[in-house]
């Protein structure tokens, strides 16, 4: 496959994955905060095609769960009441992409809840929470990477283009930041900010903290590119004709950094998604009841959950395709940027 084709393939894959998360309201059957106190820690429900009499149905159906007598987390399928799965069902209200109000869901059921991936301790639908949680985690990763790249671009360009003492000072600072183990730095930085915050405040704070921790490496790379770009013949020619610094930077130097920026973005975004997850997992990130992949996993820190409710681990699986996508994108971008190096 050509470099361009590979790139397109990974972009399509990632686009589809992000599309699903972005339209979580449509793909999730329920609101992520909707509780069902009757069914805490219900296991994933199975979809059936063949009923108790052995007849085959083209429309999948499920049996609602009923708590076993005398237990608090054991469920049986109520095989008398077969509930057909409805596609494009009416359900709770949501705003598609945060803009278009709607109450149409990809699937759902009337009279009983269908929880494909089980429920958590409050009986909230795990499938819906994973989709909605993905919005928080991915957005944090994307915005955080944006902050880092902006910061790195500014510092790298200033150091590389102007050189001299600015370069010296900025590069020493960069070394300082590179010397810190990043997870410790992330926690250290988070440590000194307020602990109890509203979900939105916490989210913005995390984005900024994550974004500020990682700027050193991109800054160094961009400085290198800018250093070589500003000595290119066409740039020197433009300078000779009296082009001002601002024009030179915008027109000639910064475009040279685009492939480094793109590759770095593809590397940074999954890292930062993981950073958000780590913070939320440790209880330093987005707080409950707002779902994020990290705080969904935090349940596993309780031994009883770990022992008995394996479906609470599923949010960790949800991010694997995204990592795969970004990994593929990063290597495709690298091949695309310098094709001769990779035979």
């Amino acid at each position, binding site marked *: 496959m050509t470099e361009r084709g590979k790139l397109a393939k990974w972009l399509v894959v990632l686009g589809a994955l992000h599309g699903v998360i972005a339209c979580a309201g449509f793909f999730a059957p329920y609101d992520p905060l909707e509780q069902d106190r009757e069914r805490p820690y219900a296991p994933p429900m199975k979809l059936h095609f063949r009923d108790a009499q052995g007849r085959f149905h083209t429309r999948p159906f499920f049996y609602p769960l009923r708590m076993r007598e005398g237990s608090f987390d054991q469920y049986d399928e109520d095989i008398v009441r077969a509930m057909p799965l409805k596609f494009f069902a009416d359900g709770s209200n949501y705003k598609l992409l945060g803009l278009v109000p709607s109450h149409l869901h990809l699937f759902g059921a009337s009279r009983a809840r269908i929880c494909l991936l089980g429920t958590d301790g409050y009986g909230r639908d795990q499938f819906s929470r994973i989709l909605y949680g993905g919005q928080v985690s991915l957005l944090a990763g994307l915005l955080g990477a944006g902050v880092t790249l902006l910061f790195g671009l500014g510092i790298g360009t200033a150091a590389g283009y102007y050189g001299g003492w600015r370069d010296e000072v900025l590069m020493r600072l960069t*070394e*300082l930041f590179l*010397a*810190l*183990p*990043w*997870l*410790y*730095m992330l*926690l*250290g*930085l*988070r*440590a*000194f*900010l*307020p*602990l109890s915050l509203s979900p939105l405040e916490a989210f913005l704070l995390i984005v900024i903290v994550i974004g500020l921790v990682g700027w050193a490496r991109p800054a160094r790379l961009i400085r290198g590119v800018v250093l070589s770009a500003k000595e290119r013949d066409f740039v020197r020619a433009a300078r000779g004709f009296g082009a001002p610094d601002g024009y030179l930077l915008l027109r000639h130097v910064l475009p040279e950094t685009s492939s480094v920026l793109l590759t770095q973005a593809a590397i940074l975004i*999954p890292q930062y998604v*993981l950073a958000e*997850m*780590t913070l939320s*997992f*440790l*209880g*330093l990130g987005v707080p409950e009841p707002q779902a994020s992949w*990290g705080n969904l*996993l935090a349940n*596993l*820190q309780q*031994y009883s959950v*770990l*022992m008995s409710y*394996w479906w609470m*681990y599923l949010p*960790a*699986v949800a*991010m*694997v395709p995204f*990592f*795969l996508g970004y*990994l593929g994108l990063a290597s495709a971008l690298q091949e695309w940027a310098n094709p001769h190096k990779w035979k």
Partner: protein
Amino acid sequence: MRFLLRRLAHTALLMFGVSILTYLFASLAPGDYFDEMRLNPQIAPETVLALRAQYQLDRPLPLRYVRWLDSVVHGDLGYSFSYNSPVGPLLWVRARNTLFLTLTATLLAWGLALPLGVRSAEYLGRLPDSLVSWMMAALLVVPDLALALGLLLFAARSGWFPTGGMVSVDFNSLSPMNKLRDLALHMTLPLLALVLTALPLLVRHVRAAIADVLDAPFLLAARGHGIPRHRLLYRYALPAAANPLISLFGFSIGALLSGSLLVEVVMSWPGLGPLLVEAILSRDVYVVIGGVLLSTLFLVIGNLIADLLLYWADPRIRAEPGAK
């Protein structure tokens, strides 16, 4: 010798810079350990003020920093509010456990990465190479949090491994042989999590470095002389490819240190990680500063060792005019 001194001075300067940076951050932070007391109606405002005065939180910033530096020199690293003891001794115990885990993981990861990388470079583009590449890609796709939690889940459900801690409750009553066994069992999962996350990067770099050298004329000549394959790879190719790998070694220590923080929390290994998270949640400033500084120190020492190794391994660096 001058090289060593210069590097040491550089390191000291770096640590100084990091200490100012962390201290500044810590002090600019809104709120402190005694804020929660202030909200408690049963504690008189005067008591809180007195406590703040006792811990000298009411002094100006530069003065506090100097006093803190003084306590660093004495090995105290400030005072922990929640443990009510100097931070230093608290950290040392935890740091020992973290170092133990991280260094073992580093050795193990490199011990695996070298043969794997060399083997794939040797069979570049053929079956063993693509097999290793696929394995590494698979590992790379699974993030460390998912891996650590997955291993923990596995331990909990299979019951083959303990699900946390460093030793069992009855550790002191065990015979030496059983003590070793107990420790090894507790260490297996954290080690596995760390090694598996670190491995892909290491293997990729070893492979690239060796593949670069394998085309060199001197290796062709060596092969022509009929030098055995194993000797060719490990005695001729590996030293020639060592330079970038030694730099990577320093870097890998830092990466494993960061990774070990999360793994320690997940697997409740009594290292720096859980202590740090606890300290953050209770606003125990000096413990946080100490933890960050200590981890930085480890990383910097790791890089220093890598530099010295490089100096020792590569005569070209020794010959540089500035490095004499």
